[in-house]
């Protein structure tokens, strides 16, 4: 069953994500596809994540289609103007890619080519408008297309904000993304079911499926690093303590179990889970089994 049918029929959907590597060696991608297909409903293919140059996400997503794993093609506005974005989207459809996740993208300064020009011709909302327009058979200049796609567009939202302005801006933007055509959301990683519950209360009325983001912790340092550097991630102290207390050889198990417990707790509040394993992609089926999915 496709991600779209699952979410639209109200079933709990599972996605994970992996990034293409830097270079032309596709072994890792193919291994991930083998491990994940038939287990998750779809896999996000990241788009030059953190502004680090890698193999094209479009090509990687096409490899997923060929390998029998449904991809979610992530598209950011950092590197392409509206001409290239629309062209790649049409290309994606031709390659059998149905799901697109529209993102604004990080600044180039944060990545490994800080000298690059950030494009940001469109942003996440206007990119969704472009996808909607393509679905209707027109490009952004209202020229008619010969053959049109039927994408299932999604977007992201962050759950944890540390200022009132940031929280309200996120909710306002979520509303705008829906108006522009977003039909599902994936969230930034969440570690606190209580604040997730509060967030879901606020966005329930949008009636758009939300897949909660999960990043398994690897060790306490990793958690502290995310708290200090990643906007929208807040790992509570007790989880950091648990990680710190675990013996070195048990850490992996503790981290995976913690992720599974979070999924169990938040499953009743939302419509799906999005597991970002960051290097542990092959352990996603294990996390799912522990969470009883």
């Amino acid at each position, binding site marked *: 069953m496709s991600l779209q049918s699952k979410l639209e029929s109200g079933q709990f959907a599972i996605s994970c994500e992996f990034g293409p590597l830097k270079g032309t060696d596709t072994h890792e991608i193919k291994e991930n596809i083998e491990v994940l297909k038939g287990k998750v409903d779809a896999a996000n293919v990241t788009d030059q994540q953190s502004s680090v140059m890698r193999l094209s996400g479009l090509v990687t997503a096409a490899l997923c289609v060929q390998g029998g794993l449904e991809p979610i093609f992530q598209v950011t506005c950092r590197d392409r103007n509206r001409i290239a974005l629309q062209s790649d989207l049409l290309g994606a459809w031709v390659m059998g890619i149905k799901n697109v996740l529209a993102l*604004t993208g990080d600044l180039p300064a944060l990545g490994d080519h800080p000298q690059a020009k950030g494009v940001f011709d469109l942003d*996440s909302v206007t990119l969704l408008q472009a996808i909607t327009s393509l679905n*209707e058979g*027109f490009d952004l200049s*209202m020229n008619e297309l010969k053959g049109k796609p039927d994408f299932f567009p999604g977007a992201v939202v962050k759950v944890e904000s540390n200022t009132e*302005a940031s929280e309200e*801006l996120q909710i306002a933007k979520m509303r705008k993304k829906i*108006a522009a*055509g977003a039909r599902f959301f994936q969230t930034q990683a969440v570690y606190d079911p209580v604040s997730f519950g509060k967030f879901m209360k606020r966005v329930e009325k949008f009636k758009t499926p939300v897949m909660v983001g999960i990043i398994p912790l690897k060790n306490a340092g990793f958690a502290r690093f995310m708290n200090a550097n990643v906007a929208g991630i807040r790992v509570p102290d007790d989880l950091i303590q648990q990680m710190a207390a675990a013996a070195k050889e048990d850490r992996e198990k503790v981290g995976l179990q913690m992720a599974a417990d979070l999924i169990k707790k938040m499953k009743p509040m939302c419509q799906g889970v999005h597991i970002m394993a960051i290097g542990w992609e092959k352990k996603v089926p294990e996390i799912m089994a522990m969470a009883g999915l």
Partner: protein
Amino acid sequence: MLYSEQKHFDEIIAYLEKDKNVFIMGCEGCAQSSGSGGPEQVAEMKQKLTEAGKNVTGTRNCDFLCSKALVKSELRGRVEQLKAADAVLVLTCGVGIQAVAASINKPVYPGCNTVNLGGSRGEWEGTERCFECGQCLLYHTGGICPLTACTKSLVSGACGGANKGKCEISKDRDCGWELIYNRLKERGLLSRLDDMMKPLDHKKIMPRPEMMSLARYGLENPGKVTDKPAPPPAPAPAATPKAGAAPAGAPKPAANPPKEVK
């Protein structure tokens, strides 16, 4: 010099939809020489708005509105007229409009678009900056320029990158969208956050060919050069109605005629 031209009257009157009482400000610096915001244009605007059924509570032409330090002193003696206004319409460049918006606790609307001359950025040193985008969006953003205040020049709202109010690029730079949010909140204009913006028209942001290297063009084409760019293209409102009100799926063929964006 910051060259500006008046927005189409339809766009201005749409901004003032809910505001009956208007105070108009003009600038006797660049805006006067641009023919967009000098005393003559302010008087014309007053007449047009009155004809359109608005009550103009007062007008004021200042020298150099871009100098925020002067804005308040120039308005001495006009406090009552300002108080009586629901909104302030400013006929000048993006810097001047932002300086007024930062100084007066009222909704402040842009009456002009600032046009890119390909180099000049004005003399004003302050937090207000204008990118000369030719499609001034300050109405939607509480008088803070999203193109210069936000590192990514985002027009649809904040990215998720802000941390404790600072932009993801650096702990020293305020997130421009959080500044916009706080300003809109302070002025009771938070519903503007739902204004759906069209993609920016980058053709307007590029300097017009005839404005590039004006001196050289003038030398090569004696008699041909004027310091005014071609007349403004037909108005294209920068935003469609509220997110909630719009049907899912934004650009509809009917609302966006073919080839409008070239």
